[in-house]
């Protein structure tokens, strides 16, 4: 193969439905369908043109849209879906790929944490584990190793929540502004995480449309290109003890990258394929289930040295006017977190909107390269994608 593997692939549209704490009358499927129809309308692509579908409910979507027979990816969205969809288009196995997901009507028993955060596995459930505790065990280890402080975690949470505060489309629009002191004054959830260090829960849908660069030229959309990407996993989430220094274990495997730095291999792969350096990234749409995750990802993705992430996020460096603006819509903490898959896809959607220059708040001027992530070390995986406004 000559040239870039995704040279002929374009993301032509990214569509979010309305997001809210609760979307009355919606189910996960109805909001997924709304997102799918929204992205097709935005791209002005007829549903009949779609020949592959990704999503947790892809089969239902194929039936509801009446577009069969088409390729059912049998896998969901997020960065994993986008990279696999791009591969389908690049190899000619599909021409126009729809990715759609949504969450609604899932979290009704508020005395417990959200159902998707509660594992049923025999080695974690009896000990009261849920995602906040899983990610806390990773954060605590980093604090022991490097002296990372609650104030540094609070800086991350305040930055992201303030991005949501000014975003008219965020579920928590207008809830702030927040200072780090506000984060530190919120009630304790799972040490070191306080309430405002944690993602919110809400409902909403998100869809992407990926097609050929040739087809994109006919559409009234600003195409966004996939410069590179990678997926890193150590195993199933929320089943095994989330240790910072967990390694694959097999002799000769990648023992130099522990779980604490999951995502590093994926990032190296992404930057190698893209042929660019980290200094060329204009905006980072980092996945933010918990504040510490951002500190970890800056180290894992080699934007700073090991143990330096706590200092790295200070002094406005990750703020809207800093050199590394993060999670510009408010992320899982403030924009939306529908559970399952949709919030994974929304990181990519925001990266697309940044490069299309259509963000209603916190638009990074002249953004040409966006890095998006999914996952986290409490979940033993981190996926990375690099998007560009110029064809690779």
């Amino acid at each position, binding site marked *: 193969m000559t040239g870039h593997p995704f040279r002929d692939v374009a993301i032509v549209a990214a569509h979010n439905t309305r997001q809210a704490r609760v979307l009355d009358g919606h189910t996960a499927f109805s909001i997924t369908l709304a997102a799918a129809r929204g992205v097709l309308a935005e791209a002005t692509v007829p549903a009949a043109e779609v020949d592959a579908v990704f999503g947790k409910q892809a089969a239902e979507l194929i039936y509801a849209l009446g577009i069969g027979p088409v390729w059912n990816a049998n896998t969901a969205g997020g960065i994993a879906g986008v990279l696999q969809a791009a591969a389908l288009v690049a190899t000619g196995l599909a021409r126009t790929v729809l990715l759609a997901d949504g969450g609604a009507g899932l979290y009704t028993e508020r*005395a*417990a*944490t959200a159902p998707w955060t*509660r594992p*049923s596995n*025999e*080695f*974690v*459930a*009896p*000990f*009261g*584990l*849920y995602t*906040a*505790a899983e990610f*806390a*065990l*990773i954060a*605590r*280890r980093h604090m*022991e190793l490097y002296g990372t402080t609650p104030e540094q975690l609070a800086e991350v949470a305040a930055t992201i929540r303030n991005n949501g505060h000014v975003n008219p489309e965020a579920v928590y629009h207008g*809830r*702030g502004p*927040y200072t780090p*002191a*506000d984060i*530190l*004054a*919120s*009630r*304790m*959830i*799972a*040490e*070191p995480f*306080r*309430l*405002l260090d944690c993602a919110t829960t809400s409902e909403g849908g998100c869809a992407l449309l990926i097609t050929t660069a040739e087809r994109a030229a006919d559409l009234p959309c600003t195409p966004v290109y996939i410069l590179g990407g990678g997926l890193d996993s150590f195993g199933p989430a929320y*089943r*095994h*003890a*989330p*240790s*910072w220094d967990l390694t*694959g*274990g*097999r*002799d000769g495997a990648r023992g130099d990258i522990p779980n604490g730095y999951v995502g590093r291999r994926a990032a190296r792969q992404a930057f190698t394929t893209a042929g660019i350096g980290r200094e060329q990234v204009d905006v980072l749409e980092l996945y933010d289930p918990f504040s510490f995750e951002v500190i970890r990802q800056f180290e894992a993705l080699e934007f700073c040295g090991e143990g330096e992430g706590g200092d790295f996020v200070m002094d406005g460096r990750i703020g809207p006017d800093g050199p590394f603006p993060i999670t510009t819509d408010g992320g899982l903490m403030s924009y939306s977190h529908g559970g399952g898959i949709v919030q994974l896809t929304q990181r990519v959607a925001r990266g697309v909107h940044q490069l299309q220059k259509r963000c209603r708040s916190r638009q990074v001027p002249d953004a040409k390269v966006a890095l998006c992530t999914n996952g986290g070390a409490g979940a033993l995986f981190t996926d990375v994608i690099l998007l560009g406004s110029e064809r690779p």
Partner: protein
Amino acid sequence: MTARERAPAAAGERPAESTLLRPQRPGIPLPSPTAVSEPFWNGCAAGQLRYQRCAACDEAAFDPVWACRRCGADRMQWQVSAGLGEIYSHTIVWRPQTPAFTTPYAVVIVTFDEGFRLLTNLVGGTVADVRAGLRVRVSFHQVGGGIAVPYVTPAEEDKEAT
């Protein structure tokens, strides 16, 4: 920020350092042993902390595996741990997974002296006792249905040393 977000007590302080950490009441989610994990849970019911060791490469393993993750051999053998180890990482949970859990509770990852790790709860100490490196000893608690879960408590040897 809303009233619901704010800490109930004095802002910024770690709550209730002296709170005693107790075993959970019946009603928490119980394990459903599988073919590979049944020997472990049978061990707990008998008061033994069992783990696997590879007869080919000597690697210790937990949770239970079908084959060695290090060398790939099919020669995992069950052994009995002396039940002593130290805290690797920890979190005090104040917002429970479900109302079945009494808060606060301490979730800890323990590195046992035989070289395997177990995720569990620390009981029999206070919130202030929970720290990385604390020596702990396994302690089994009946949770109903003939099932015992392995908790850890601060080890006696640690108290003598300090």
